[in-house]
């Protein structure tokens, strides 16, 4: 499946900004099953300086500075992505979930990938260690020796039943424990909550930011700019490798989830950060288009 993605971020300020600097994590990374045919990041005004690097996890990070100032700033990320359809084995024949667990000492003679997996079983800045109530919650799905995909599938559907999408219920700083107790939030909250649940069973799980293909209501045209950036979870399932699951949409990722970046949680891969010299009041608007090309 091929996608053409366009992601606009716009900052509008009340007064002149004399100087600005940004760090962006907006361009999809290369990874197994995902090929970047073309990527382009442009800004208006044109940046005075810019630079790129691969971060600790291999994500692409872009830097800009704007030394001539602006009133409005636009950051436009465009990409053409080829996704291979992921096929999953029958859930009941997948390995027991315990085979994916990483507990205690992971031994010696480890690879970089081993270390990375181990890291993803630990608490992180936004995913604190789960409480006993959360432990009970996930154990209902992860009964002993249950095939891992079946357990995940069950967890996702329970999660979908129990949690309600509600952008007014949380903000960027709402901790996982609050999201879990009120059972409301947005995709970031759900991803963080799921991470806490999986990590308390010592299952390696990472936070993924990206896009999801959307479908217009039947009989209608897809609205331009109506898509959004999205977040979900990737969990390491032993021999099956990393499997992406989307708690917001109660599904396993197949060929409709385009990955931008992954990390321990949101703080590792914040889409746009920045500082300015100028007024404090500003508005931020984002529009995203995910165009499938058959």
């Amino acid at each position, binding site marked *: 499946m091929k996608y053409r993605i366009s992601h606009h971020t716009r900052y509008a300020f009340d007064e002149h900004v004399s*100087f600005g600097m940004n760090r962006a994590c907006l361009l999809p990374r290369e990874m197994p099953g995902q090929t970047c045919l073309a990527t382009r990041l442009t800004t208006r005004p044109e940046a005075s300086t810019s630079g790129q690097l691969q971060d600790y996890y291999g994500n692409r990070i872009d*830097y800009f500075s704007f030394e001539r100032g602006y009133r409005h700033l636009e950051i436009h990320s465009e990409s053409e992505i080829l996704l291979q359809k992921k096929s999953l084995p029958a859930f009941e024949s997948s390995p027991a979930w315990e085979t994916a667990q990483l507990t205690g000492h992971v031994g010696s*003679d480890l690879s970089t990938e081993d270390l990375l997996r181990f890291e993803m079983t630990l608490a992180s800045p936004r995913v604190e260690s789960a409480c006993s109530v959360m432990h009970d919650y996930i154990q209902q799905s992860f009964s002993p020796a249950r095939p891992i995909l079946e357990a995940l599938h069950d967890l996702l559907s329970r999660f979908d039943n129990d949690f309600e999408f509600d*952008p007014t219920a949380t903000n960027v700083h709402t901790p996982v424990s609050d999201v879990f107790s009120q059972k409301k939030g947005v995709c970031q909250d759900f991803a963080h909550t799921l991470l806490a649940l999986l990590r308390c069973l010592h299952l390696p799980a990472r936070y993924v930011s990206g896009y999801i293909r959307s479908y217009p209501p039947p009989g209608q045209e897809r609205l331009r700019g109506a898509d959004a950036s999205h977040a979900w979870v990737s969990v390491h399932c032993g021999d099956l490798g990393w499997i992406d699951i989307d708690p917001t*949409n109660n599904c396993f990722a197949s060929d409709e989830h385009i990955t931008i970046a992954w990390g321990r949680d949101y703080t590792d891969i914040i889409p746009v950060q920045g*500082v300015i010299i100028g007024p404090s009041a500003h508005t931020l608007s984002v529009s995203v288009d995910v165009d499938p090309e058959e």
Partner: protein
Amino acid sequence: MKTGTPPRSPLDQLADYRGPAGSFDEFRTADGSIRPGWTRFLNALEQTREHDLRDNAQLASRLLRENGTNITGSEQEDGDYRPWELDLLPVLFEADEWGAVQAGVEQRARLVEALTRDLYGSQTLLKNGIIPPDVVFRSPHFERAFATVPEKFAPLMLYGCELARDSNGAWQVLADRSSSPGGLAYAVQNRVVISNALSRVLHRCRIKRLAPFSVQLQEALKQAVGRRKNGPSIVILSEGPSNQFYFEDIFLARYLGYPLIEAGDLTVRRNRLCLKTLEGLIKVDLVLRRTADARLDPLEVSSTNQQGIAGLLQVIRNCRTVLANGPAFGLADTPVFMPFLPAACQYLLGEELQLHSIDSWWCGAEEQRKFVCSHLDELVIKPAFVHSGGEEIYPAQMSSAEKESLLARIEADPAAFVAQRHVTRSTSPCWVNNQVRPGHIALRSFCVRNEQGFHAMDGGLVRVQTADGPMQLSVDAGEFSKDVWVCSDTPVEPVSLLPKMQQTPSLRRTNLELLSRSADNLFWLGRYLERQDAICRQIRKVTERLLYESADQPVPDVQPLLMSLADQQVFDKELLGVEGEFSRGDIEKTWPECIFDSQGVDSYRGLHQKIYELAWQVRDRMSADFWRAINIEHHRELFVGSTPERGLGELLDDVNQRIGTCCSLTGQVMDGLVHGPARLFLLVGRYLERARQLGFLLKHYLAHDNEAEVLSLVTLLESCNSLMTYRSRYRGNFAPLPVFDLLVTDAANPRALVFQFVQLEELFQQLPQPPRTAQTAPYMHIIRQLRHRTESILPRADHAVAWPSYRGRTAKVLAELEPAVKETTDLLTKIFFAHVGVTRPIDSSLRGRSL
């Protein structure tokens, strides 16, 4: 002494000194003989006239006080002030004994460097099971953003560690300090003071110098930058006066000869790190940082509260600036690494670890946890991922219920705890209150890295606690400090920090660039010195009148002074206990207390505090004499008004002393600062404030009913320091018009209002031209207008003006004065001091809203 017998001499007391049982003693060996280094010391002490340590101790503490050596920097909170204490008796080490410590510290520095590089790089220590991965991945100090910073531009330049000697005399490391090790300046300062107080003893003992270490540091910094056409631009980055060790930053900046700056003075432009100065932006090649990791780059370090320099890490990644120490260092400063260092040393360096850490166990490892839980009483429990010096738990002092809950805490999250064995630190003789007593010591040692490798300092900082028991690991813990003397087998060569004479530089007539922030602080120092002078003179006048007039005599002439002081919130009217008009009887009793106890920026004590803080901010520009004067005054200030007797006499005495200091400070500043922007801004502040103060006083005189009374006029002239001038012109003939002419319109009187405006205009001419303005600068416009208005109070040709019309026109000018001063200040701030402005964060991207 009540016993009547004079205290015995230090030498006699040292001869009797014995360390307590159960600890290693630095003075005597186990069989009771005095160690060779100390024998040398005792001989030297006996041969010199310095054997009576009492006088020398007084000299030492005076020197420390005058240098402002303290812990809490600007002493923001009351009672938080802690002067630095130094014991004159050093700790002595023989050359060979010290050599082993030195080699161990240098190896330890190499190990910490290699270990940190490995963990931020290929992580072979984790892959091969030398260090468990949780130790690194769980650490809040493992900042992933630092992994992409190139090593060469982020070196470990300075390393320090905290050492103690156990009861067997073996050295153990209590803490590693590789982020920005503290204590170096205190060590050097101690030596400077000791060199004054015990110069002959020091010389006779042949003690190795500390200066070579500083020279090595300077050289190392230069090497790290590489060749630069105009010499490297090196700065020391400080957290500012709010940091409790700000003294160190200032001392190092002066001692090493680099500008001391704060994050707000730096900005990243065109991929280069730049210093904001009045002349514009200047590129920086190397930053020696004294700040925490979390205060480096708000764009990259997730935990920051938006402090630091946005873009700093990118500049380092682009190899345009060196940051020393590099941001990665600090990871290994947490105690959790200690149990793994011997194996890591073997693995990374192929060497046996020479200096072992204090016995440590990490509860995250099953075996180690079991040991900890079964030996609780012998151990100290600490958080694993906090830099050494955080919370310490002593199970031996706990009830069994408390122990149970501690065990539960450990079981809940074992990886979060380490346990260490308590070390009974070695003892050394101390000279306390004229008595020689043993004290337990901890030694902080320092290492500098140049191209050849690490070099440990021949000396260090010793902190002392007289009782055995836990002592915090921070530089400010312990009761007092000591100098460390390393004996030399050979004569000691003199070393100087002054650079060798090179090519004669081309002549300059201006100083190097003035930081925008310094200009700001100098401006306010000028204003506050003047404000203090004026307000103190007014307080003095009121006090004198109350003191010298007999009690039944009214003193209506002080009324305008009181109104002016009240208007400026110099005192708290409630403390005075009066509402509306003040009468003699009302204030007689409450006046001294009211002045001593009033709070607020412009109160009697508040003004001193403000000046002291500003002086700290510009300390690197001030002469040593200025600094000495302000420290003496500050020391006095701590006891101001605390005497039981707080009458008018005491107040008058205090104010007189303060005015004296104020004059001396002003003199020092004027004499010490060469002509240039620094002096300009100070003077602008001074004249602006003098105009403002005159305005307050004159306004309240005109508002007062007794304006024509001779006594009032005399008081006014005296408060404005113009009584002598008036007398020499008009003899005893007092009338409002000539008095006001002298104070407002007489351009020949340096105390007259118009004179201040003329001065300001002249100063404004010399200021750097603000960018993008061809015509008159706006601040110039304001002051020029004020001058015109003031001059026209007195029609030029006609000196015979009637008082009422003079009075009316003056009142109008005075009404405009305060707003004009404020506007001028705002303009100067905007144009010169803020310069490039303050950065603030913007929203991160919106949260996803997909369904």
